[in-house]
């Protein structure tokens, strides 16, 4: 007798687990993480995050988890047992799709062969490795606890362990970096043939050590950084990587399905301090303090901060701001259907920029930003948002 399975009519959901531990803090990093390996804290975190997952699972019976992302911090630094336990807890409490993308961020200094084998066995199927630079001097300045040789070795071991979907993170606009340096970094990393590459421009965030001495860092000018960006886009394109978001490139359509949720308005739930969620119409962030998170979960206190119910009109703004990060871009009919706002005023702005080569429109009629347009996306977006503010809702489609 054939087994008839009812096609699950469930909403897709992404899960994000924030693992707030690192060997050391990088000089530019403003993510929430603690540079320590205290067993008590780590155990406390593990208990809290698992308890949190358990109580949240009950709230999402109509969802199917199709992406899970372990970020940090440095998840690989947390150790295989803990990670396995968290993933197992997720599987027990959520309906996880068999083909779910399960990613983990790793740093070159904390990936042992044993850890990698275990992760693969537990079901992790995508690794994101933080390489950042091929220059040991620069890595030192950034406060990264590894050399480039270590990074290459880590990459090879990830491959050897059997991961078929590997991403690497690179940074440009680094202290004293030249265009030539950056091209060399890309050349070196491309030889590794990763499926996915993220290239981030270094941004000096307030509150980071770099912020305090940014004038002394000798950073490349905005114009040079713009050239670095365009160089990367061009080099990666010629090597078969498709740019699917401002800073993200992939071969063989191996886009980060989890991250796409952020840009395409998908729903996601976060666990661990400082993790964000966009779930059931609400956006919220968990408290940015491990102790408060642990005690909040344990005692049933408040761990959510900044809970916002986002009105449709604001969602319309987010649609522009997030979708235009992606190569897929935005479409008039989609926009009007979702938000009942006229697309015409936006089209005017987009057309104006098209004449200057900042935007384009594809054969499906979707508007997108060109690489040059990505570079000044804030300027274009603020013009679009102004036009949107002034637009009058449509009575009907």
């Amino acid at each position, binding site marked *: 007798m054939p087994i008839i399975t009812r096609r699950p009519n469930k909403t897709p959901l992404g899960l994000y687990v924030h693992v707030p531990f690192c060997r050391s803090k990088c000089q530019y990093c403003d993510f929430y993480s603690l540079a320590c390996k205290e067993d008590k804290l780590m155990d406390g975190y593990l208990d809290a995050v698992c308890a949190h997952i358990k109580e949240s699972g009950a709230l999402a019976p109509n969802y199917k988890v199709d992406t899970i992302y372990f970020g940090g911090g440095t998840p690989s630094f947390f150790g295989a047992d803990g990670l396995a336990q968290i993933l197992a807890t997720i599987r027990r409490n959520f309906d996880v799709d068999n083909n779910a993308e399960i990613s983990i961020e790793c740093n070159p200094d904390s990936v042992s062969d044993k850890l990698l084998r275990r992760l693969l066995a537990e079901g992790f199927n995508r690794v994101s490795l933080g390489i950042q630079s091929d220059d040991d001097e620069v890595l030192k300045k950034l406060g990264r606890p590894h050399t480039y040789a270590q990074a290459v070795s880590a990459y090879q071991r990830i491959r050897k362990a059997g991961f078929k979907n590997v991403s690497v993170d690179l940074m440009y606009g680094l202290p004293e970096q030249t265009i030539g340096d950056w091209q060399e970094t890309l050349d070196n990393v491309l030889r590794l043939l990763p499926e996915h590459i993220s290239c*981030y421009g270094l941004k000096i965030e307030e509150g980071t050590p770099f912020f305090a001495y940014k004038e002394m860092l000798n950073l490349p000018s905005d114009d040079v950084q713009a050239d670095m960006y365009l160089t990367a886009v061009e080099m990666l394109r010629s090597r078969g990587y498709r740019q699917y978001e*401002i800073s993200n490139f992939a071969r063989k359509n191996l886009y980060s399905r989890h991250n796409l949720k952020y840009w395409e308005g998908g729903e996601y739930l*976060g666990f661990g301090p400082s993790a*964000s969620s966009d779930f059931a119409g609400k956006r919220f962030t968990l408290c940015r303090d491990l102790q408060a998170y642990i005690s909040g979960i344990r005692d049933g206190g408040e761990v959510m901060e900044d809970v916002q119910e986002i009105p449709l009109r604001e969602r319309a703004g987010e649609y522009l701001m997030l979708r235009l990060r992606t190569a897929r871009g935005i479409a008039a009919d989609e926009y009007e259907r979702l938000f009942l706002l006229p697309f015409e005023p936006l089209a005017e702005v987009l057309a104006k920029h098209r004449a200057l080569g900042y935007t384009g429109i594809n054969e499906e009629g979707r508007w997108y930003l060109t690489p040059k347009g990505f*570079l*000044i996306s*804030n300027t274009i977006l*603020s013009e679009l948002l102004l036009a949107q503010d002034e637009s009058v809702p449509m009575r009907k489609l």
Partner: protein
Amino acid sequence: MTDLSKIRNFSIIAHIDHGKSTLADRLLEECNAIDRRIHAEQLLDSMELEKERGITIKATAATLTYTADDGETYALNLIDTPGHVDFTYEVSRSLAACEGAVLVVDASQGVEAQTLANTYLAIDAGLEVLPVINKIDLPSARPAEVKAEVEDIVGIPAEDAPEISAKNGINIHAVLEMIVKDVPAPTGDREAPLQALIFDSQYDSYRGVIVYTRIKAGTIRPGQDIRMMATGAVYKVVEVGTMSPNGLIPREALGAGEVGYITASIKTVADTQVGDTITTAENPAPEPLPGYRKVQPMVYSGIYPADGAKYQDLRDALEKLQLNDASMSYELESSIALGFGFRCGFLGLLHMEIIQERLEREYNLDLITTAPNVVYRVTKTNGETMLVYTPLDYPDPMEIQLAEEPFAKVSLIAPQEYVGSMMELAQQRRGEFKDMVYLDANRVELHYEMPLNEIIYDFFDALKSRTRGYGSLDYEVIGYRPSKLVKLDILLNGDIVDALSFILFADNAYPRARKICEKLKDNIPRAQFEIPVQAAIGGKIIARETIKALRKDVLAKCYGGDITRKKKLLEKQKEGKKRMRTFGTVSVPSEAFMAVLKLDED
């Protein structure tokens, strides 16, 4: 009514920062005129701005009840005066309401330009000037020397001047005794026709204008019909009374010699001009008190709402402000670049800044202020003479036969080691040297005649910085003189932005044009294309800068947690765009206009 022999009317004069307001507070305290519960620093300065800037902008007055050592109780009327060169006329009218002035001199700073200027005003008004040496608690105090200075420079006896510390309440009693003993009691016939001097007025939304007055002759009572002799306005008196720091105290009448207030349901302070004389309609005085002068603004600038849609709000705010400040004028102006706004007249730059700040703070407006200018006089080739209040009205060079600008008589005082740098500064500002006087072994007073235009911008700041803060300035406008003037236009991306045009002395045009272009380059955000910034005189480009095209304005990373942050950032950027004015294809933030005003700061 208080017996004439028991009244003393006095004011306190001083150079800025010499402790005038603090002494006023102490006197009020000593006479228990202040309810301790509401005691706030410097009670007479009630405007928030005055407290922040530490200066008195509007004059105020209070009656102190003081029982002197002779056992008699006196009514001491303290009339506070503004302390800035912009307000010289107001000071003179306040002084005309007094018989004496307490001259506060800082025991370490000694006599300064304003000390002298204000003392001369007091002496001219026939006042008994009583020096007081303040801040004797400072380690750098040199009371004996400063007394000698007062005698030598100011020319009044200072041997018996009380040595006090207003801050620490030392010797305040001596000041009060001196006032009782040495300030002459007022005189005046209370049966004569009414002559009341207006020395200030203030708009109150419940009572209408409150007029502060000194009765010179006659008596005023509620119910009387009164007439302002200069403006001709007629009103019926509702209430008269005296001022205390805690509020107004109604009285049955005010008679000659007394200082107090009058309310008469007056709608606007324009009807109660400082210096005007109030008399009764029934039995008018044959002539007004001397010294009245209609206040003329000296500096004009265009004020526009940053958001063009707020034009009506700005108009309402200016209307309300003018209820309280008749010395400010405003008139509709329209600029091609900025749309509708107002050309406003001010007594000086400080006055302008104050009005601007009040508009922004009290009325919550974002403003664009154009470069201030003086009033130029142009005789055209057709023989017509016109006053030019705004660069927008400056005639074509071909039509100008004679251009003139206002000149002022300037007095500068500083220790002699700064004479060189003061002279250099004055010369740079086109000053014409008149003479130099040694005030004492160390201090020098320089007299110049120079264009008012050169004084109003930042002359005082430049003087202060070149003299390490010791220099002081006083000036008085003396009339028009022929001058070489040009109108400088600014072009953004090839188009003239009329709101950035201004009139200046031809020889200054090149360096100024260069500086303005540089400033604009720094203050106009990059656009997606290159923007040439040019300065031109009559179509001829004399300076140029280029704003490079914008290449990078992106948030590289945006994942779950960043969305809210990114939204806020874009929201801010969007709001910033709203506050920008677009000229052709170039967006200019309101700060760029401000930056052009502050050309000489670096």
